[in-house]
């Protein structure tokens, strides 16, 4: 286990190193400058400012300085927010994103599990068809369309939820719903397939033969055994949530990090783009590591070892 962990952590570090290197050099190829006020500056002044930010040094020197900073959790100073450390910027805007992302994930997965297992248990009935339609519909609507519809109908027309602000649980409801759609659909589809497989397996037949009740079988055997593989899709779902949060935060005015990423991209705020890329990547790595460990702990058939196979 220790060996396995060590190896995984080594790979995470390697991944982060590669990612920071690639992002750094991509940024150097990026057209345009980061200056917010370039229109009114002369080349001489631009040079002066570059010097202050250390952008006049050779690229390899900038790279080394940057890497050294990253090791210490220092991603430099944001270009949009002057004198604001990127790490502070990320830290201070991470909270709302984690809240709506977490809620969206939990809601999506839980409802997805219910919808998926209902579909499997009642396979080929109208319930199954409805469940399938719901899950396919939810993967087929872009999150920003869903967000616009939710805001207009539930927020503005019906006034069920407050909009255009942040503060308190009620404000998180609509963004959470918008984010939950995609994990819900994915989980439901995955769960249905798994459950159908499990329900037709030998041990379920045996349980039936022993005369166990339907509810008991589903609860004690089918559900538990189909739940395990769900852990494997948590990683991809996390990526979905990250993507979704970039648009959902913008529409619902959530002061989060996804919206900030988009803004940084559009304003050439290199340090923030680089910092956020690394943070996104690190978060995903950690989620993948945790799911793998969990998977090993829950499913006795899989033992964590240093081997690849």
């Amino acid at each position: 286990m220790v060996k396995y962990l060590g190896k995984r952590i080594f790979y995470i570090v390697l991944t982060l190193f590669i990612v920071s290197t690639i992002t750094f050099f991509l940024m150097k190829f990026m057209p345009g400058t980061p200056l917010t006020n370039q229109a009114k500056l002369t080349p001489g002044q631009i040079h002066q400012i570059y010097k202050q930010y250390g952008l006049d040094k050779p690229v390899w020197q900038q790279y080394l300085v940057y890497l050294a900073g990253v090791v210490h959790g220092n991603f430099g100073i944001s270009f949009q927010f002057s004198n604001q450390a990127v790490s502070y910027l990320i830290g201070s805007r991470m909270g709302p994103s984690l809240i709506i992302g977490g809620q969206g994930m939990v809601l999506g997965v839980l409802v997805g599990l219910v919808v998926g297992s209902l579909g499997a248990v009642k396979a080929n009935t109208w319930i199954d068809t409805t469940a399938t339609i719901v899950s396919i519909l939810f993967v087929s609507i872009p999150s920003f369309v869903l967000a616009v519809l939710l805001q207009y109908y539930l927020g503005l027309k019906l006034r069920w939820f407050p909009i255009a602000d942040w503060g308190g649980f009620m404000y998180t409801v609509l963004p959470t719903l918008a984010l939950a759609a995609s994990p819900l659909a994915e989980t439901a589809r995955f769960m249905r397939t798994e459950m159908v497989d499990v329900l037709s397996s030998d041990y379920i037949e045996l349980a039936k033969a022993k005369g166990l009740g339907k509810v008991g079988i589903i609860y004690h055997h089918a559900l538990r055994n189909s739940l395990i593989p769900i852990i494997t899709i948590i990683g991809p779902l996390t990526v979905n949530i990250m993507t979704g949060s970039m648009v959902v935060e913008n529409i619902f005015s959530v002061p989060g990090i996804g919206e900030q990423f988009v803004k940084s991209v559009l304003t050439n705020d290199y340090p923030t783009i680089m910092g956020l890329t690394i943070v996104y990547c690190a978060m995903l790595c950690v989620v993948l590591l945790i799911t793998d460990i969990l998977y090993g702990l829950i499913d006795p058939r899989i033992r964590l070892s240093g081997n690849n196979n």
Partner: protein
Amino acid sequence: MKLNSLAKLGGVALLSAVVLAGCGSKSSQSGSKKQTLTWTTPSNIATMDTSTMTDLYSAQTANATNQGLLQMAPGNKVKPGVAKSYTVSKDGKTWTFNLRKSNWSNGDPVTAKDFVFAWQRTVKPKTASQYAYIFANIKNAAKINAGKMALSKMGVKAEGNYKLVVSLNKPQSYFKFMVAQPEFFPQNSKVVNKYGSKYATNAKRNVYNGPFLLKGWNGTNDTWKLVKNSKYWDAKAVKMQTINFQAVKDPSTSLNGYQSGKFDYTTLNGTQVKQYKNDKDYKVNKEASTFYLELNEKKDPIFKNKNIRKAISYAIDRSQFVNKVLADGSQAPKGYVPDAMSERNGKDFADQAYVKSGVSYNLAQAKKYWAKGLQETGKKSVSLNLLSDDTDGAKKSTEFIQSQLTKLPGFKVTNQNLPFKTRLSRSQNGQFDMVISAWIADYPDPSNFLDLFTSTNSYNNGKWKNAQYDALIKKSENQDANNEAARWNDMVQAEKILMNDQGVVPLYQQALSTLQKSKVKGVQFYPTSPQYGWQNAYIK
């Protein structure tokens, strides 16, 4: 209102506490309406450090929380601020400001030294201010900024605590507007030194001398508020107790928030304007900014031909453009310098320098000039790209201009919409055929616009050249600089030359269409930065 909705929600303790605190201070008001309102901005505050500030929304906030020597007043005028009066020497090069006794929010007196400190700090190379150039006309500032001279040599001196003497390189009649801008605000050296590089990165690491105090801004968040500053010298004139701010980046979200009663102000885009044109809350504020087309004469010699330039200008139906396409209150331009910005003896600059042919639409004329131009340049067809930003407005513009220009026989136009900064660097490096540029006034003086098209200016992206134009601008800056009438006349002539020669193709003058609850009174709109002022606002 806010309290109401929060109570309904069962709200978060923290927020309720903040709101209740706001209510508490209100009870002292004698029975009038709650003096609080909620304002939206499309962007959050980038910094409160007036030395490194570059964006409008930070400047707007700084303008509400701090004050310079003078302050902007309605009608593109200035009124006394920290300085109660000022005198200008005969040669126009020495400005002396007499400061009133006023205090910072921490109790320190605001002195002339605070101004010297602030201005020097902005110009100091180490600060890397992107706005240092604005001090260029102050003696030695440019050299200091380039690192070639000691800071103390800068032409701004404190004589005692309450007298500030500024020496300029050249007379500058509009210097009075400049000292009202945030870059010229005072800074409290004690506070700046205490926080070092962290100065003004959140609401607490700062000190204020303006009508309001900034609260609840942590440096990166989307909500903050302005609270009345009881230590402000003119505090009795300030009626608003609290102004809540919220950065809402999506225009439809902002409008939805307005409709649900959450906000008292929102800006509108074209389609939204159509719905609200007759609403009593609807207001159009004309900005001192012009959008124009630059033609790259260096890359495409065909644009050196005046007939071609005229053909392009004639081919664009500006009234259809602003009324049908943009439809956001923007107006067809009267020329390159926007109107309602500067006037002399009751006459608007744009009216005085009006050249009809430079901004009107006439497709028949356009085709005539086009054919003539093609003949002169020996071309049959032209295929060029049209560069602009990738914002909604810019996309609309390029698509419209493209459709207009392709009506000229043999003219093929491809559009290129790039992110703002990429577009900027391309226009400055001359990597374009035609580009839609915009200029927004820093201060209400035509020179702010006209300077751009002198042949050596780095923002003359199209490289249009005219010796007569250059001479007039030079004259206005030198021998006529201290003679208001002659200077004005030089500038009017220059604008006329620019328009007659079609050195630039003006497209439209931008306006801000807004909804503002009718109970909100006294909010001042300025066509130039900082756009809005709230110190006289009140709720009726």
